[in-house]
């Protein structure tokens, strides 16, 4: 019975955009062909400075540094520093836009590619100018047909209206979570399987075709475009001094309208919930940062703010900005078991501790859900034993996730262990688990 629960794919929420006060990225929504396309977009956004291969434009790099922009894909690396590292290499660099978005409850990059393709392409163009690149590759999950079509038609429009820019192409990536990890992406672009490789070297030193490669998340590129247009001080008008700017948040779960919203970093969770038309049920727990993130207790709903500083005490981080509100009627133990099963499936199968450790964590959590006959302390130990043991950070994510589950759902786990399974654990799961049709695809 549990088996079928775990395999259930719940319907993906229909994502629409909310526009709270002063949207930035979402202010560019509707720049696709049906909304007037590039001609209309250029009324509000100047054409980026053309990239000159091998000649970085340091002014753009300085603006990114002064803006304090950090990557919005999950790791939060300072974008300006990454630009500088790529630009200071001897070979002519190349640019990769990462819009693969393998995180099952995040839809922001999909949304940007679909509804603001010219903002995305401008971001990539500014990035290419910043580092002096001679090509741009935009990576989108091959199952995300709508976004691929939209970005390709925006590229075609540019070739027609603005010829002579840096060559841009869309690459359709394998539909796997770790395929979006930067070393996996580079390995795949270079003709290999979309599996992580050992670092160093990191892509900024040796990436696509062995050249220094700037890989940024799609949202990060979009912010970069607006920073280049409007300046670092403008960017800092929102967010906190330590974590400036806005961020896209994908809100799903017990809300009236699941959607992508844009808020200043450090805004309250309640702001985001209100922008998604409020709660539909009382909340049991909150998953912040996606499946690669951590659970917060439902009690955090009223107080917590969406910044890394505010989330740190919970062992959580903003990550890719996905927030899921689990209703109190759901079972956090079972949902955690389903997510750990997802982790185990998503392992590239390369590193022993990841292959065996994630399977052990998933099995343990499943047993906890069904019979309670697992010692949570054992799972805690295994979490420590998988951490930092893989070539990529997938096991680290699983460790962080299960630790938060063991903490936040401690009382529920105790109930399950005493044979008092909650009603929620006997219903179908709530969190979406991607379909496994077609089996593992790495090419």
């Amino acid at each position, binding site marked *: 019975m549990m088996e079928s629960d775990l395999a259930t794919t719940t319907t993906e929420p229909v994502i629409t955009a909310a526009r709270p006060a002063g949207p930035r990225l979402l202010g560019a929504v509707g720049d696709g062909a049906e909304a007037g396309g590039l001609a209309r977009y250029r009324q509000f956004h100047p054409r980026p400075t053309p990239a000159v291969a091998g000649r970085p434009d340091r002014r753009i790099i300085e603006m990114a540094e002064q803006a304090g922009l950090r*990557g919005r*894909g*999950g*790791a*939060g*690396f*300072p974008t300006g*520093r990454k630009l500088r*590292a790529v630009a200071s290499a001897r070979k002519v660099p190349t640019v990769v836009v*990462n819009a*693969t978005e393998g995180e099952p409850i995040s839809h922001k990059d999909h949304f940007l590619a679909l509804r603001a393709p010219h903002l995305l392409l401008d971001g990539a163009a500014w990035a290419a100018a910043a580092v002096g690149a001679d090509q741009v590759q935009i990576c989108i999950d091959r199952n995300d047909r709508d976004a691929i079509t939209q970005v390709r038609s925006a590229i075609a429009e540019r070739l027609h209206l603005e010829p002579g820019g840096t060559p841009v192409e869309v690459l359709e990536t394998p539909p796997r979570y*770790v395929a*979006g*990890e*930067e070393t996996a992406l580079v390995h795949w672009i270079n003709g290999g399987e979309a599996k*992580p*490789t*050992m*670092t*160093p070297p*990191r892509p*900024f030193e040796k990436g696509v075709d062995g050249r220094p490669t700037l*890989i940024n*998340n799609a949202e990060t590129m979009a912010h970069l475009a607006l920073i280049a247009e409007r300046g670092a001080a403008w960017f800092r008008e929102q967010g906190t001094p330590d974590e400036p700017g806005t961020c896209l948040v994908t809100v799903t779960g017990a809300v009236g309208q699941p959607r992508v919203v844009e808020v200043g970093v450090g805004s309250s969770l309640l702001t985001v919930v209100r922008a998604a038309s409020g709660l539909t049920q009382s909340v049991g727990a909150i998953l912040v940062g996606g499946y*690669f993130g951590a659970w917060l207790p439902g009690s955090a709903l009223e107080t917590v703010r969406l910044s890394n500083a505010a989330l740190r005490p919970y062992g959580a*981080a903003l*990550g*890719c900005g996905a927030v899921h509100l689990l209703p109190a009627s759901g079972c956090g133990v079972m949902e955690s078991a389903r997510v750990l099963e997802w982790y185990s499936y998503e392992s590239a199968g*390369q*590193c*022993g*501790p*990841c292959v*065996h*450790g994630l399977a*052990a964590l998933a099995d343990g959590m499943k047993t906890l859900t069904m019979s309670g006959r697992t010692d949570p302390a054992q799972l805690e130990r*295994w979490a420590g*034993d998988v951490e*930092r*043991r*893989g*070539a*990529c*950070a*997938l096991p*680290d*994510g699983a460790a*962080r996730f299960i630790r938060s589950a063991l903490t936040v759902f401690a009382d529920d786990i105790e109930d399950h262990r005493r044979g008092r399974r909650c009603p929620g654990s006997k219903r179908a799961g709530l969190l979406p688990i991607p379909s496994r049709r077609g089996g593992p695809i790495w090419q």
Partner: protein
Amino acid sequence: MAMKYRVRLDPIRCTGEGLCADLFPEAIRMDDWGYPIIDGRPLSRDELAHARRAVAACPALALSLEQVEHRAFPDAEPAQRAHSR
């Protein structure tokens, strides 16, 4: 100052043969699934010989000695390690 070294493992290459933990238990122990957990601390002069034996014995060529040095790009691994995406 003398160069400091530490043991480095390539987890993709590692097949869990376990020779390393037998040869250098001071810095390498096995997990519940038969794969080595490496203590990445800088090695003392006495330990270095043991480490070299463990590195040489690995049939998967997964172990190496790495110089402990100032890293050119220290933030490449953020405090809270996350996927760079």
